[in-house]
């Protein structure tokens, strides 16, 4: 947990220059050449980590709607679908708020940093003899660094690498041959590297 916080802290530190930049270029913000706008992003990604002693992979799909306040800052909301695997696959559907900082504006390649906080929802399901009585989601938090590549009029490619944290709780029952079901409560914390590729329009 401390190491995660350290990582997130460094990500946040990387936004400090953005604040300075905002002050220095105040005039630039007010220049009529930038118009606040709504930007749409669709991402596909991999969630890489380790579950037990084995490597584990998951996939992600997200949509983020960002309101670009100024050339250096945008805020928005997103939702997505993530899969993880620990003994058995689980899917969560995060809904999150996002803040995105850009190191420059109107360049072909724009570095950015992003933090998001939200809640990953889960769905009940049955898998073989296992019934999830209650599949609770939990806190979803992430940070990422990446670049946006302008490829045309209001169209861009996005590459990012980040860190994803998802909490969840599962209560499930299993039919057992000795005459009845039993319950097990599992508390999970997924910690993954999040590699994403997306488009912006």
């Amino acid at each position, binding site marked *: 947990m401390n190491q995660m916080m350290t*990582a997130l802290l*460094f*990500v946040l530190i990387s936004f400090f220059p953005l604040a*300075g930049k905002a002050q220095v270029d105040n005039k630039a913000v007010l220049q009529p050449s930038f118009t606040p706008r709504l930007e749409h992003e669709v991402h596909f990604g991999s969630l890489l980590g380790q579950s037990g002693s084995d490597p584990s992979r998951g996939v992600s799909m997200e949509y983020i709607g960002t309101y670009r306040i100024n050339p250096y800052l945008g805020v928005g909301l997103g939702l997505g679908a993530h899969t993880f695997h620990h003994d058995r696959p689980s899917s969560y559907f995060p809904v999150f708020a996002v803040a995105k900082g850009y190191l420059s504006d109107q360049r072909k390649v724009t570095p950015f940093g992003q933090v998001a906080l939200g809640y990953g929802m889960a769905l009940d399901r049955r898998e073989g003899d296992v019934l999830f009585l209650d599949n609770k989601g939990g806190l979803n938090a992430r940070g990422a660094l990446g670049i946006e590549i302008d490829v045309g009029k209001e169209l861009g490619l996005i590459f990012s690498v980040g*860190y994803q944290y998802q909490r969840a709780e599962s209560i499930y029952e299993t039919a057992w041959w000795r005459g009845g*079901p*039993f*319950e097990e409560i599992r508390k*999970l*914390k997924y910690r993954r590297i999040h590699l994403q590729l997306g488009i912006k329009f």
Partner: protein
Amino acid sequence: MKTIPTFYYFIGLLSLLLALPSCVQDECEAMIIYQAYEPVYVHPDDFRQPTEYQAPRDLVNPGKIYVYQDILLINEREAGIHVINNSNPEAPQPIGFLDIPGNVDMAVRGNMLYADNYVDLVAINITDPANPAYAGRAQDAIPHQGFNQDLGYLIRYNEVPVTEEYPCNDNPGTTFSRNGNVFIDVSAGGGAFDLANESAGQAQDVGVGGSMARFTLAMDHLYIVDEYRLHVFGLNVPEVPEKLTTVDIGWGIETIFPYQDKLFIGANNGMYIFDNSIPTAPKQLSIFQHATACDPVFVDGNVAYVTLRDGRECETFTNQLDVVDVTTLTDPVLIKSFDMHNPHGLSKLNNALYICENEQGVKVFDATNPNTIGDNQIGMMTGFQAYDIITLQGNLAIVIGKDGLYQYDISDPSAPRRLSNLLSL
């Protein structure tokens, strides 16, 4: 416009990369509810004594029932036997209570009552039911679960629920032991083993038990089944039964029912048929297999009636009546199965089959046609929980359950008439 130094950007990225290897490990903790089974021991010095006869006491946890002439014997689980004068079924009279710790079953032959006393078999002379006399004991006659030199015989396990948290990958599994206790995941069920069942013998100097018996008398011998084996006792010396032989059967043995020179043994996985023409050497003829369930058996003529019920101790979800053609004993054939509620003991008298259906009481079926018996319910006895039943010539039905003892006049099977109800003594 000065470009922000990109090294800030790479510092953040590098820090992420450095921190990640130790941050990308998933964490999982599981909370599992276990049943801990704490062993209970009894020292021989505490029970290996002459049995006492005490004043009548209330029915608290009745088990098997047994009828011998005008005497009704009701097992008080793990405690002893209620003795009741049943010469007038409309007004049964409690006589006394035989204090027999660990008792769950019984049988009577020639005025001699045989009962288990933990691991021993005691003989009690009931010539005068008001003054039963301890006659003798066969030590270590009943198989036990273990023996400790200091503590004594392991007689059961007490269930103690335990909730523990484990890292998911360290789950010890559904069964494990620790410090002498056995832990079984809640899914394993558990519960103390019920060694009690009753069987029905029909000889003149032999009493009559229900279909839930594990003791039975046949061919002048006493037969006792445990979970895996059949034990044969000679009664040449009535006061001290002598174990003659033990026959391995299978697993999940539940009940024993003698019929002529055959033994029908109910087990979790089926009904075993033994040839008992040589009483000291029962020989298996066949097995009628069914889905895993608890299964009392009653045999009449060429038809065996087997009830299968669900429940944690029975390890299944089946509730039904199986009607089996046993004309060819080496090849029993299922005639038909009928869905039931939760059948326990059963009995048949003339053309009526009586099935104990737990909290639904007793259901009475027309047994004229085995192919349609389960579809022809003709009567009911309701208002109580029914565990086992004995039907006697003279049109008397005796039903036992956790609500007490009920006796019915079954002259008209479609309209059983309640004679008496013994809730407490």
